[in-house]
């Protein structure tokens, strides 16, 4: 299931809905991404006040559904969920939830890892950071691209 929303989410409620009544599920691996504020440690002006997530409505849902299908084809999942928020979020707030339920522990954990790597590099979201020094768009990280490349997902992205 895919949810792209402004509202916050409750992890317990999402996991309960995902597994409800399915006793073939041995476990649920999940990852919750939070708005982090590391930059403010040294200089108060650098402290993150908020982050605004912009996305491409329509394409986001389509791409998230496609990668969820890909994960389900790679691992024996009983259920899966991606919740991704957009809009303005403050430090400590939840951004994203990925949850994968399976009879098999390692399948659940690997699928969760796969989906997070993909989200970082392929999901059409952009982050605008607000600090005391002003606003700045977050650059994509080479380490995220390398992590996603581990899985050899076929994409038709532009040659870069």
């Amino acid at each position: 299931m895919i949810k792209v929303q402004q509202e916050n989410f409750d992890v317990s409620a999402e996991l309960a809905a995902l597994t409800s009544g399915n006793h073939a599920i041995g476990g649920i691996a999940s990852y919750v991404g939070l708005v982090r504020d590391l930059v403010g440690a040294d200089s108060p002006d650098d402290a993150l006040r908020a982050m605004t997530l912009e996305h491409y409505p329509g394409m986001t849902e389509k791409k998230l559904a496609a990668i969820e299908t890909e994960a389900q084809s790679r691992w024996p999942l009983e259920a899966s969920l991606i919740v991704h928020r957009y809009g303005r979020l403050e430090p400590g707030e939840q951004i994203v939830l990925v949850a994968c339920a399976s009879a098999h522990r390692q399948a659940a954990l690997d699928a969760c890892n796969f989906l997070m790597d993909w989200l970082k590099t392929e999901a059409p979201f952009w982050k605008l950071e607000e600090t005391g020094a002003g606003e700045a768009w977050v650059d994509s990280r080479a380490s995220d691209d390398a992590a996603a490349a581990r899985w050899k997902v076929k994409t038709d992205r532009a040659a870069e």
Partner: protein
Amino acid sequence: MKVLYFAWLRQRIGVANEEFDLPGDVDTVDDLVTWLIAKGPGYAKGFAEPQVIRAAVNFEYVPFDHRLSNTDEVAFFPPVTGG
């Protein structure tokens, strides 16, 4: 066709989306970028480093040699930073 811009590309160009007929001399995404750059300084600034810009047509990432049709929805944006 409909063209959308996101993140700092949207800010530099100054519009989020626009609709116009596919110009006669525009066959590919690359051609469209060249055509847009000629429209004004905001576009020129937005596409100053075209190698960092990614394109999607009808919600799918495409290379810049992808051929366009007049019914396409084309989106341009910087590298994504989700999760």
